[in-house]
């Protein structure tokens, strides 16, 4: 899952990038409102973490302009002030959730996962594909009830395909959503990762659709 994190405090943005990368997200950072606006308009993000107090262009304006341009990715607001007056402004400008500073990183990650799931039209945190169960809240995967260890990249690819189950996902789309902007992208590694997932969870879980990419068969 690819995230845009918009936060002008260098310390907090560094912490956010580290924690969210460890949690398996591909993270792009924007340090001011104008950069954030541009990235949000041009790159396909699965979710955005947006600070309200930003230099050059404030967070609410950035959010409004994304929504005016029909960018529908889920947005979670971060702010130091948590009065309802401000929450209402943020939510009615098009934000999907709201987190007041100081916050616990685990809370942010849980809410991000919930928002991404909701945006994919999946209500429950657990996705079931035959013997394989993917818990998007705790980010754990079991096969026949036995926990399976996946690397961050393997989990990211599996979760993205699972959330878009039934639809072939191209390698370009996967690359866009699994890697941060400044990452050296090489589509061959996707094949390697898909191979490793199949070895760990069963060959039939991920289908290769010739010329179109990968697909997972919907649960149930």
């Amino acid at each position: 899952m690819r995230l845009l994190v918009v936060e002008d405090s260098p310390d907090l943005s560094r912490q956010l990038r580290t924690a969210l990368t460890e949690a398996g997200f591909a993270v792009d950072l924007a340090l001011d409102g104008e950069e954030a606006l541009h990235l949000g308009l041009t790159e396909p993000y699965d979710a955005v973490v947006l600070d309200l107090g930003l230099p050059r262009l404030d967070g609410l304006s950035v959010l409004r302009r994304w929504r005016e341009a029909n960018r529908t990715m889920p947005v979670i607001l971060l702010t130091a002030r948590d009065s309802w007056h401000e929450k209402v402004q943020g939510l009615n400008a098009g934000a999907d959730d709201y987190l007041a500073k100081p916050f616990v990183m685990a809370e942010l990650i849980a809410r991000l996962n919930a928002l991404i799931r909701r945006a994919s039209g999946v209500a429950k945190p657990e996705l079931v594909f035959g013997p394989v169960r993917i818990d998007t809240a705790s980010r754990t995967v079991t096969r026949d009830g036995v926990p399976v260890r996946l690397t961050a990249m393997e989990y990211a690819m599996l979760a993205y395909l699972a959330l878009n189950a039934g639809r072939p996902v191209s390698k370009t789309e996967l690359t866009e959503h699994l890697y941060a902007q400044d990452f050296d992208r090489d589509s061959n590694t996707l094949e390697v990762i898909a191979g490793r997932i199949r070895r760990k969870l069963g060959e039939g879980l991920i289908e290769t659709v010739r010329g179109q990419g990968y697909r997972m068969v919907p649960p149930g």
Partner: protein
Amino acid sequence: MSASAGRIAVSGSLTRRLALTVAAWVAIGLGITGWFVLRLAAEQIEAAADQRMVSLLDAVIAAAELDPVRGPILARPVSEPEFERPLSGYYWQMTGPDGTVNTSRSLWDQRLPPARPDRPPRNEDIIGPRQEPLRLIERHVELESRTGRPPRFQTVTVQVAVTRVPTDEEIERLTRGLVLAFLGLGAALVAAVALLVVWALSPLKRTQEEIAEVRAGLREHVDVTAPAELAPLVQEIEALIEQNRATLERARTHVGNLAHALKTPVAVLRNALEREDLAGARAQAATLERLIQHHLRRARAGALAGAAGSEASPMAAASTLAQALKRLFASRGLDVTARGPEGARIRADPQDLTEMLGNLMENACKWAKSRVEVRVRPSRPGMIAIEVEDDGPGLAEGQDAAALARGVRLDEAAPGSGLGLAIVVDLAALYGGTLQLERGQRLKGLLARLELPGRILPGG
């Protein structure tokens, strides 16, 4: 002054404004009065001069005779020596029926304007033989010819002309004197008003100096013995100073409380870190955060103590909040509705009403199965009740009984007590309202009833 000079626009000097207005009115008033006085005086002077001329004319006529040979002559001298002195400025001239003209010696070889027996007698200003201004009056009289038998009466035109110079000079002297006197009077009036203004405004100046001294910490209070017009202003300022002092006192207390409240968790946190007890450290960090939240909200509530006079619409606040909360709880598809008169107004700052309602409605959304209802209605006279009801589990069993039995008021609700209603209680109390929790009758969940001072706008 320096601190706030940027926001105070100086709109001209009161003294100058008053002085200019008074000067304009004095100029107009004295000008008109002066002109009238002058006109009256000048008319008086001219009337006197005319009167004297008429006497002279009468004297000439009384002494006149019509001589058959020499025409009209003076039978005896007139008692005015100036008629004899050449070009003296006093002249007479008589014209007989056959055109013979006789004049006073003073006219020398000059003549007054020719007689016009067929036209009304003149009374006008003319230019005399020495180019001096003269006043001329004439009369047509019937004189008896001394030789005719029976005697015949024939028309003779008698003219008298007298220099205007002394009259004009007198009028000019009077004018000069009057103008000088009125100018002096005007200047004195304006100066008096300016002095009056300065004197009347001097208490303001004194008050300003006293306020400056209060600001500098040299005195505690502004002197309240001010003139009646200034007393309310001074009282307001005194109240403002008092309020500032109270706010400062509250702020000091808040900071003291905060520092005190933070000390213990910080001490525990330090110990936990030394023992590398991560769980303990985390718990203390959480406590610190809760304390910061609690004190921030209290500080905001305290700062708003003076924000009287504003009104907020509970229906507007509830609708905006419903919209935001539906988005926040989008995955649960909650039905959040608000019902009540649109004209309802709560006497509170709109942001504070949103804060109170937001907390209650979010709480309801958290526990609701599918529905949250907000109802606004007048309760007691002067009070508006806002009820937030959900279809959730309501209060827990133990709490439930206690709460329902006592119609509980959560005044002592501690921060982080789980209800998150402490701020609502604080704010409601600040605005003279109350919060009660009970079991809902309609949706069977929790019912939070917020009662606040307010009114229903007519026609709303």
